[in-house]
Structures are given as C-alpha cells and as structure tokens.
C-alpha cells in the first residue's frame, strides 16, 4: 500500500485549529480574492446579491466546520468584509 494512500491509525491524536468564518455581506464588493486564496477552498460566491448589488462569499455547504483559522481571507480582503473567529476546543483532522 503506497504510503500516501494509507489512512493513519492515530488521527484522533492530531488536532488542528478551527475557525468560524464571519462575513459582512453588505461590505463586500465581490472581488473574490478570499475565494481564490482560501487554502482549504471552502468559500464560494453566493447566488444572492447584497444591497450594493454584488455577489458575496458564502461557505460551501457541508464545509461549515472546515475553516482552519489561517486568517488569510481577513488578510487579503480589501474591504474588511470577512474574518474568522477562533473556535475553542479544536477539531480533529
């Protein structure tokens, strides 16, 4: 079995940081930088429009708990429209 295909037996021992993504829809101008750069690719463009008429980022369904709190979305957003909040009691891999 190639090493990469194996499922490690001790995954429960490994914890990774978790974040909760918070998006201020009304501040977004739909530049999509956060979607482009999210390393876990958990964001997508909404179907809805905000007040200013832009599509804004939303979490992909089923990936609500997948944020790893790297804060890069917060870093790249030109409009301070997205940030992540650390979730205590970190999740498993």
């Amino acid at each position: 079995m190639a090493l990469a295909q194996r499922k490690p037996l001790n995954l429960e021992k490994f914890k990774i940081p978790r974040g909760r993504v918070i998006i201020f829809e009304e501040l977004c101008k739909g530049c999509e930088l956060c979607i482009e750069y999210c390393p876990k690719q958990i964001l997508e463009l909404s179907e809805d429009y905000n007040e200013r008429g832009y599509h804004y980022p939303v979490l992909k369904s089923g990936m609500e708990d997948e944020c790893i709190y790297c804060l890069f979305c917060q870093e790249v957003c030109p409009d301070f429209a997205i940030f992540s909040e650390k979730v205590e009691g970190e999740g498993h891999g």
Partner: protein
Amino acid sequence: MRVGVFICHCGRNIASVVDVHWLKNEAAKLKNVVFCEDYIYLCSEPGQKFICEKIKELNLTHIIVAACTPSLHGETFSRTLESAGLNRYLLEIANIREQCSWVHQNTPKIATKKALKLIEAALAKLTYAKPLTPLRVPMIRKALVIGGGIAGIQAALDIANGGFEVYLVEKEPSLGGHMAQLSETFPTLDCSSCILTPKMVEVAHHKNIHLFTYAEVKNIEGTVGNFEVTILKKPRYVWEDKCTGCNDCVDVCPVIVPNEFDQGLGARKAIYIPFPQAVPLVYTIDLENCLNSKKLIVCENCFKACGPRAIDFLMEEEEVKIKVGAIIVATGYDLIPLEALPEYGGGRYQDVITSLDLERLLSPSGPTGGVIRRPSDGKIPKSIVFIQCAGSRDPEHGRPYCSKICCMYTAKHALLYKHAVPEGKVYIFYIDIRAAGKRYEEFVQRIVEEERVLYLRGKVSKVFRKNEKLVVLGVDTLTGRTVEIETDMVVVAPAIISNNGGKALAQILKTPIDEFGFFTEIHPKLRPVESPAIGIYLAGAAQSPKDISESVAQASAAASKVLALFSQKRIALEPIKAEVDVKLCKGCGICVKTCPFGAIKIIKKKKKKYAQVSKAVCQGCGSCMGACKFRAINVAHFTLKQLFSQVDALLEG
C-alpha cells in the same frame, strides 16, 4: 640488464597442468635471462627468501615471477624486491595460473606453450621498465561519513573518538536510519531506540563530529587524502540554532499528512519531527504539504507561535564545501515496494503490510502505542500469516539473493505478536530457516517449540480478500498438500534492495556497484570494507543485506581502516601516473575531455600550449593515453612502448 625468472608450482594448481621443468629450461634461453628456477610455493616465506637470496647472489636487476594473478600476490613480490634492495617497479608478474593452468586444464601441452608466451611478454614489457618512486602528498586527516543510520553513526563515533574530525551527512531530518524504526532487536529483544538513541545523542554532542542532517552529498572531486566534497543542505525553513524543539508550532499547524517514518500508518503535521527521539531535535517544514509555497505565504500560524522566531519561509538551499581525506559510504537499504508483490495482494489490500510496517505497529512510540492493529479497521488481528522471501531468492522479481535478516525478524515478530495476543494464531511460510549468527538458531528454536507458531515450508501462490478477511493460498511442501488459510492480516518480508539514491551516489563517488545496486568491495573475503576506489570504505547494508550487529562490526572495521590511513601525515601514492611529452603535445585538449578525474589542464607557456597532469589527482587509468592522437601521453609503468612490445611478444611466432 640481468633478469631472474621464478616459476611457481602453486602446489598442484600450476604444476599439474603446465610442464614447469620444460618451461624453466625454455625460459632460461630467453635474452637477458641469467637465472631461471621453479619453486613449489613462491609466496611462502622460504620462497620469498629464495628470490631475495638469488637477487643478491647473482646481482639480478629485473625479476619475472610466473605465478598467480598480481592482484593476489603483486604486493607480496614487490616487497620481496624491496627487501633485496631492488626497485619494486622492476618486477613483472606472468599470470600462469588464472590465465593459463586454470582455464586450459584439458590441454596441458598448449597451456605450457602459452605459459612461455606469457613469460616472453612479461620480459618484453620489463625490458623498458624504469625504477619509480612513490609520490608523497600531504593528507587531510578528516573523514566524511555518508548516511546517519547505525553503520554511519558507529563509523563516525569510532573515527571521532580516534581524535579526527568527521563530517556526517544524513539526507533525512533526523539521524537513526531504519534502526530507529524498529521495535525490538533479535535475538536479545533489546529495545531498538533504547540502544540507538544514546549513540545518536553522542554524535550530536561530539566535539569532533560535524553533523549535517537534511543534507546530501552533491559532488566529490579529488582522490584519497584530498577529496573535495560539496554538501547540499536542503532548507528546513527552521533555523537549527534557534529551534528549541518545544512543539508549539505543531499544535497550531492545520495540515495533517501521513508520516513516512511511521510507514504512513501514523500521521504528522506539515511542520514536524519524524519521531520524538529525533536528533537533532529541530523541526522541519515539509513545503510540499504546507499551505504556503515559495511564492505565497498563506498561513503564518507556526511563525506566530514560534517563541524563538526560528521559522523562516525564505530559507534557501545552501552548498557547503569541505575537504576530507577518506570517505565511508553507509547509505543503507530500502525494501522492495509492496506494489511489486501483487501476488501477495501488495498494494491492493490494506491489511497486507510489510515487516517494517509491523515494526512501527509494535513500537511503543509508534502510531498505535505498540498495539498491533489492522490498517483497514484498527481491529487487533486474531491471526497473522507471515510470508518470507517475498521478492528475495526469487529470480522472477530480479532478486536471486537472500535478504538475510528476514528469518530472524519474522521469528521475533511471531514471538512479539504471541506475547501481545496469546490466543492469536501465527502461520509462517518459509523456504529455509537461515539463522546463522550468535544465538540466532537457539532463538528460532525457542519460538518454534514454545510459542505454538506454525512454520509451513513452502511458497504462497495467491492472497485474496473474502469479506473482511484475507485468504492465503499456498503449498506445504513437507506434506505435499495445498493449504488455504483465512487470516486477519498478512505480513510479507520484502526483499532488501539497494538504497534509492545509491546509484547516483556511486556515480558521484566513481565507485562500482553490482547488478543490484549494492556497493562493491575490492575482495569479498579479504578486503570486505574497502571500495575499489582507494580512500572510500563501505559500511552496513549499502554493501549487501546485513543485520545490526554485522553493520556495526563493518562500520568499526571501516573506521579502523580510516584511522590507519590517518596515522600518517602524508600519503604515498602509486607513481603510476600520466606523463606528457611536451615536445609531442599539440595542446588539442582531447585528453582533458577524456580524463574522468579532471586531472588534466591545458596550459600556455612560451607561446606553446600543452597538457599538464596533476599527479595527485591522476589515477593512472590510461584513458588519456588511449585518446591522444600524437602519442604524447604515457602512463608510467604502462608506457606505449612497454605495452606494444608486450603485445608484439605475444603475437610473435
């Protein structure tokens, strides 16, 4: 010129085929030969004394010894000449054993004639021989050890304790090699890491050892006593001098990947140490799996968490140049991949694992804390089938050799499994049990007799899945019946193969490897730790499959060879070197391109270009001599004149 010819009987090896009396009479008639005699064993003490006495008595100036190959006793007879006051290069050996009596056993008459021809050829070459004196050049008394497994560690410690500096290069982030992966060692059941870790720590703290981990040897130039080595340090993205090994970075790293050290059965983060006892205790970032890349830094979690600010994503690879006098190759082994063993379900079923995988499952610091669990569902297996010789002793897999250690570790695995799961069943398919070693046979016998382990003599033809279980189809050749065993887990003993990087390293070192990629020694019995490239020594499984005790013994032997070399400040080199005849040389530069050692340069003096040979670098291989269109280069002791007259003498009549 007064030539003495001495013909050896080599007991009956030569004399039973070659008519030595006829040969003696005929050789005595040759030009310049003033004395010719035969003797039963010239290599014996009285035989050498006889040569010595005759040289002095008859005032002989040149000697021909017609005996075995010069690679066996060339040195012996050269010393005999020296003790009689002659230059050692005024000796020629006519090989009338390997090249005559052994290969022409059925045609003694022709063999005898050929023996005379060989003596005539030796005489023709000797006619133009010149006395030579060895070159003495200063030696750099520092050593390079390549590979930080148990063999490399032992060799480095022995040389360092002998008072000389050692550079130890390991390609992985930590010292330890395969031995660090093992649980317990046969036949004493010592905990592997308990006996290895103190040695790793000793290496790290030794004042004479410069340790390069996560580094590789990129280039080597020069020759014994004066090697120039380029070491490539791969970037860890963590500064070794700043990292304290506190583990804070690991907790915040969001990337989990399989740990190669645990054979993928355990996990690690993208910033990691391979195992808790790692030396040096410095973390490494695996940039392939890290969220960051060379171009974009996405995640700074570890950077922010690191108190001593040891993390640096801008770290570049670095080249370090060092000079050493001797090199020890201890690059170890690999295992044949499971995918290459499809008949045993390798690569197809998760519960078909290798013995090295089982070592990680048995190890207290392994992914399961020492509990044997199936990779597929984590359950403790109720039965295990072991398949020995998986790939080895099997020309079908291109590995006809025995991997040597599998019989022993399989017995150990059976014992450890039975102790952990007393009601578990163990079946072992074997071809022969090879337990040659101190207390090895007793160990295997104990397991066969006391542990209720079923040894089945025969091979396995197929492994397939049936629901949650694996079915092993094989044959028991002692009863002649086919057997079908349902089991929870299959452990194969894969063939030991040469290390992946060994071939590239052999090219860098310009040292030979055999058809399986293992490094070759000068003589398998009498010079087992020396590579044919002088100044390069071998230790451990880089040469052939070996267990720990043999690797350690060979490492110490290689280290003692290095220490013997370093006992002198200058090194004597064979004067068999290329010489340029400046009058004939046109400076065309063909020899510069031909020289495999980079020993020749074209220089310009008084408006004339010509080749110049660095005597310390030249190995006397003769490539340049063959390539030179103007016959301007001659290798001393093997000049064109000598070789042509030798060939002429052979072809005459």
